């Protein structure tokens, strides 16, 4: 396990570069992101451990970051003052562009993985905004009317974007739909709903704030969500009103980040306020449940392993796209970035 200290700054997000297997960006904030400066670290993995290549300081907290999918030196950061900042890591100190449209904290930024020419931000102001590095103003604003903790483009389509919000809903927008009062919203899925198989006899699940979600990289209709109720759920957009497919229980506090594996279609990783990062299968790997005689999708979802080395809220985790499957990086409010191999934390 490799370690880097973000001394004086509490981690909020970590992202591997899609271009270099040894580059990691970390969004971090002083004073737990409550008040004070933020810092965007560009870290390099070297034979001598993790070294800071450079960092960019901001006036207010930095809560999330996303690498450009089209330009290896570009990266955006979402800030506490509502600004979204675009940096060129070949330059020093200042962003090449600062987009100031959001009225509240920007908690998520995400780059378009297919078209690669746009990126999105979401904010506590109840909107998602879509931007282009070529423009100084947003291209489109999608209202959610609810504190939007997370937004993500589909990895399978350039015009599909999703969000989860504090109103306990997963929204999917298709930008190809005509402009109308629906604002491109095509799916509004209550996250706290019951799976139909439960006949509504399951334990009552009240609405609770959703903090994070991610698109499966192999199955283009599968999204995982998680948040304050500690449960990770998967949804299949082919049956949007069908309730969650898999429910993964285990975290003892709110879940701050989920990320599907870039290598395995059934595996995802999570980071939680309970200070652990956990690896899960949603139970859909072929043949996995054969021995249970249970063919229901998602029935075999379970925790595969956990990493408990963080000593404060774990807030960010990301998979390495390169090399052997299993390497990931995590960050936490303990002012540390850890790079580790999930295979060394698997349970028996």
């Amino acid at each position, binding site marked *: 396990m490799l370690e880097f200290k973000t001394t004086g700054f509490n981690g909020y997000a970590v992202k591997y570069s899609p271009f270099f297997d040894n580059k990691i960006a970390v969004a971090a904030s002083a*004073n*737990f*992101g*409550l*008040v004070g400066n933020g810092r965007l670290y560009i870290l390099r993995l070297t034979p001598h451990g993790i070294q800071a290549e450079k960092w960019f300081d901001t006036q*207010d907290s930095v809560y999330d970051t996303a690498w450009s999918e089209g330009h290896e030196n570009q990266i955006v950061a979402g800030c*506490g*003052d*509502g600004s979204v900042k675009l940096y060129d890591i070949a330059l020093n100190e200042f962003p090449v562009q600062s987009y100031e449209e959001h009225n*509240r*904290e920007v908690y998520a930024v995400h780059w378009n993985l297919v078209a690669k020419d746009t990126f999105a931000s979401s904010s*506590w102001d109840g909107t998602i905004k879509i931007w282009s590095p070529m423009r100084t103003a947003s291209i489109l604003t999608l209202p959610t009317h609810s*504190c939007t903790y997370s937004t993500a483009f589909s990895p399978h389509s350039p015009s599909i974007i999703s969000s989860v919000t504090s109103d306990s809903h997963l929204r999917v927008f298709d930008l190809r739909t005509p402009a109308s009062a629906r604002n491109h919203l095509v799916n509004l899925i209550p996250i706290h709903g019951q799976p139909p198989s439960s006949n509504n006899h399951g334990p*009552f*699940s*009240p*609405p*609770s*704030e959703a*903090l994070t979600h991610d698109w499966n990289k192999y199955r283009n209709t599968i999204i995982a969500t998680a*948040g*304050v*109720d*500690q*449960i990770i759920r998967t949804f299949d957009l082919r049956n949007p009103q069908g309730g969650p497919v898999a429910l993964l229980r285990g975290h*003892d*506090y*709110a879940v*701050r980040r989920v990320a599907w594996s870039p290598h395995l279609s059934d595996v995802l990783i999570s980071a939680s*306020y309970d200070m652990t990062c956990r690896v899960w299968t949603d139970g859909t790997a072929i043949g996995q449940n054969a021995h249970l005689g249970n063919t229901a999708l998602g029935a075999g979802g379970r925790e595969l392993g956990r990493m408990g080395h963080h000593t404060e809220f774990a807030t960010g985790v990301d998979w390495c796209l390169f090399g052997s499957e299993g390497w990931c990086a995590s960050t936490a409010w303990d002012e540390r970035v850890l790079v580790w191999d999930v295979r060394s934390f698997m349970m028996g």
Partner: protein
Amino acid sequence: MSAAQRLTQVSGHMGASKSGSAGRAKLLQKNPDDIVVTACLRTALTKGGKGGFKDTPAADLLVGAFKSLLERSKIDPALVEDIAVGSVLPPGGGATEFRAAALAAGLPVTAAVRSLNRQCSSGLQACVDIANAISSGMIEVGIGAGVESMSLQYGPGAVTEFSELLESHPESANCKVSMGVLSEQMAKDRNVPRSLQDAFAASSYQKALKAQEAGLFDEEIAPLKVKWEDPKTGDVKEITVAKDDGVRPGITAESLGKIKPAFAKDGSIHAGNASQISDGAAAVLLMKRSTAEKLGQQILGKYVAASVAGVAPLLMGVGPWAAIPKVFEKTGINKDDVDIFEINEAFASQCVWCANELGLDPKKINPKGGAIAFGHPLGCTGARQVSTLLYELRRRGEKVGVTSMCVGTGMGMAAVWVAE
């Protein structure tokens, strides 16, 4: 975008350590449309037939409670638009005399009054009805109250004869089985041994005595001057009643163990482990937070939500067990989020059964004792619990409380309150 706002937002993520929700943090948020309590109080509760209020009609108790409420809150009486009074025993529901009581207390003719009866939860139902009327916009300011003179109105006259039709339906006929008899049966069926009931009852007495000696009831009790006839001499004198007279020292599980069962020879329920027959009144002044701030009223706490649940008439004692989880669902909290439970002690057997079945921490239940120690004036109790709860939460610096009770004919009610 202040640090405080961010802290509230992030601590909302943490509220759900065990419950799977951010319920508690949500509850603690302050919003302008919250229904808040700006004054709540009760009279002392005194023994039926013997105590300080034995010669005071229910409506007179109510006049005292209303007067004190107006004095304490210093609210302009003309702003009070509606008053709901829960009461179980008065003929005609007490509608006429309660309206008269409001006028006698100094409320203007513009303040409407109604009485209501949901048995032992009437006082709570009155507060909930007023809160709902405020949040729906029907009224701006209201009073929820409860009163009972068991000395003067307790007796067979409170229930009319059942028709043949009602008698012919088994569950319907069960509605008139007496509370003592059915609770005795329930204690047997649910295996609540006498020793457990006596221990619970003794602790209620001990807690109440300790609280009384420490003056913990002083804030909630409004002293009342009444006429009282000395049973020995027949002299009528004016006395001030400021203390619950049911509370007495030297009660232990052992001393209660010697009392004869009241409802069956081999029974477990007796006068010492059931609620006392008492007289008393309580009142709660409710309005929106925005109204309270505009009027400069002191906010003691807020009403969050309430639930009502039906159970089998013969199992009326399990009411809180049915109602409390229901109000948890509505508010997204669980038992660990609650600092104090005020669960009416109709009988030690049913209260302790509900608490154990729900897995409640005994330290959180009725910390100042309950109806076994100081009485259960039926319609008053639900409104009385609000003052008992809010003042104790405030004294301890705690926040979230639940009031609940079982209800005759098979119901339970529960409500969530937050002290501020």
